[in-house]
């Protein structure tokens, strides 16, 4: 059932992505309702599938990350008519679901009742935080591309299909400012969970150091945005630096400790 639902969701995400990308390759844009309805239907099936997972391990985390990305894509479409966000979130979400299926998704044993809330909150906040930071990254990338095209007075597909600069800036701000505390809280819940239920922290020194580094970079990106009131291009670069730090540190730790299943 979980596999079937994931496969259906993947098919719907794939179709929605293909339709969303159609104008990028010069084909006629599909009706907006269709590009919203397809990921909506996919997300509905995906929610049912995720609700049956224990959320332990990489594959469920990837599946949930994909779901969060799709939900944020739909929210972006609604809030800033940022359908171009789907150019990135669509393939990313479909890829993550595909990867989760390849790694292996299966219903696991139910965690004990006491741990359940902690654990679900930890995973939900961490994954949503990451998804928001990814959205901030995407909005920043779209901003920089649109900025470059507008500055260079090129009026091609980027000009036509990407949202206005200020909307992308606004989306970047909201996603970054919401994503950072969500991720921070998710990590704090993980610490609390480890101390309360797992008998203390079982992480290496490198993970702590690099985790703190990543947190500091993200914190700086939020600080310059909120306190120093950076916006536009500088804020986009800061946001990209923050998410790049998350990705690079994750990949570095994964490569350094291939067996580790921790998300960060």
């Amino acid at each position, binding site marked *: 059932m979980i596999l079937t639902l994931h496969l259906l969701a993947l098919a719907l995400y794939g179709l929605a992505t293909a339709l969303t990308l159609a104008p990028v390759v010069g084909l006629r844009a599909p009706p907006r309702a269709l590009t919203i309805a397809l990921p909506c239907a996919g997300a509905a099936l995906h929610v049912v599938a995720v609700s049956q997972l224990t959320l332990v391990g990489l594959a469920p985390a990837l599946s949930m990350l994909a779901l969060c990305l799709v939900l944020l894509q739909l929210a972006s479409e609604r809030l*800033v008519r940022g359908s171009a966000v789907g150019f990135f979130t669509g393939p990313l979400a479909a890829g993550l679901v595909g990867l989760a299926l390849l790694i292996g998704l299966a219903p696991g044993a139910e965690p004990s009742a006491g741990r359940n809330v902690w654990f679900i909150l930890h995973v939900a906040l961490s994954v949503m935080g990451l998804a928001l930071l990814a959205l901030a990254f995407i909005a920043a990338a779209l901003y920089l591309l*649109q900025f470059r095209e*507008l*500055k260079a*007075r090129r*009026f091609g597909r980027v*000009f*036509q299909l990407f*949202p*206005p*600069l*200020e*909307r992308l800036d*606004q989306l970047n701000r909201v996603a970054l400012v919401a994503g950072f505390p969500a991720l921070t809280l998710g990590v704090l819940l993980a610490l609390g969970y480890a101390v309360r239920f797992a008998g203390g922290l079982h992480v290496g020194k490198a993970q702590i150091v690099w985790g703190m580094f990543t947190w500091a970079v993200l914190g700086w990106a939020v600080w310059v945005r909120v306190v120093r009131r950076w*916006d*536009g*291009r*500088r804020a986009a670069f800061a946001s990209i630096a923050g998410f790049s730090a998350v990705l690079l540190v994750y990949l570095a730790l994964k490569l350094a400790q291939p067996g580790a299943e921790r998300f960060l």
Partner: protein
Amino acid sequence: MNDTTAMGIKVVGVNHRTAPLEVRERFAHGAHEVPGALARVMAAGAAGGVLLSTCNRTEFYLVAEDEAVADAVWGLLGERLESGAAAREYGYIARDRDAVRHLYRVSSGLDSMILGESQIQGQVRDAWEASRAQAGPVLHRLFQSALHVGARIRTETAIGAGTASAASAAVAVAGKIFGDLAGRAALILGAGDMAELAATCLAAEGVQVTLVANRTHERARAIAERLGARALTLDEAWPHFATTDIALCSTAAPHAVVTWERVGAVIRKRRGRPLCILDLAVPRDVDPAVAQLENVFLYDIDDLQTVAAQATARRHEAVPAAERIVQEETDLFWAWYGGLAVVPVIKEFRSRIEALRAAEVERALRHLGHLPPEDRARVEQLSQALMNKFLHQPTVALKAAAEEGRGYGLLEALRRLFGL
């Protein structure tokens, strides 16, 4: 040579397809320059002329037989090129039916950078008005019919559907920077029609036009009152580049007025807030170096017209119907124009042959006095039938040739052969 019916119609000029903006702005003629330019070209042998000069084209419509008038036009335009380049390298010539068809396409917006844009209709009218003294009867008729054709095509087809003008493109470009335009502040430099049109489009999107600056304060005040803004002189406007969101420039200045020196320091005070500068003027009002300032987005008329051109997909569907009307109206005009020359010649030709026939029949009948009246009538009828038979084919061929634009050679031959 003032017999315009024996002359051809020509259009000699450049447009947005053949010449870049830098060249077009040099070739642009203000209304005060039109009579002098036309006088020079007409001195080369034209019997009538109209000069249509817009930001997208400079075209001389001429009634002339001699090709020397085209050389006169290229010479006149070439004087405006500093590089010493030949003006003809940027231009084109269309003759007779093609020239008529060209003007009809121009007036209906089929030849515009923004397909179907309606501003050209007014510009054609203005050109005709400005050249009225030198146009002559053929061009009067041609421009009158061109306005009719433009109006007909806009009424009967969707060529003017949507808002694909430079002014609406200005709104689209500003929208790509700011998203929601409501509440944004705009500063207008220049008090021309284009500035007012674009300002009106921006105001319709909720932009607050707060300041109107112009070289003459009175003109600025007139527009400012209409837009609910404050009037300034140009020198008072520069500090406001620190606060405005959109600057719309459309002065008639012959050189850039918004320069790095004037606004560079002021714009740096914006602390990175985007500034959209829309330069609708030809020649351009804004020094291109200003675009290098951080978060300044500068667009000139070519940029805006490029954007607007993208909004014309729907208008393209109306092109075949519009082209059919152009063809139909060109045929009508050419039939009239051909008729100008052919009808009098045919009349004269027929009356000359009729006189010969009548004289010969009368002479013959004098020798046939014994014939009864009904036979005399039969001879009369025979001569008339023969004459009609002989004249039918040449008349039809002459009219057809005239309608196809090939009548002048035949007319000349007829005149020589029959001493008309």
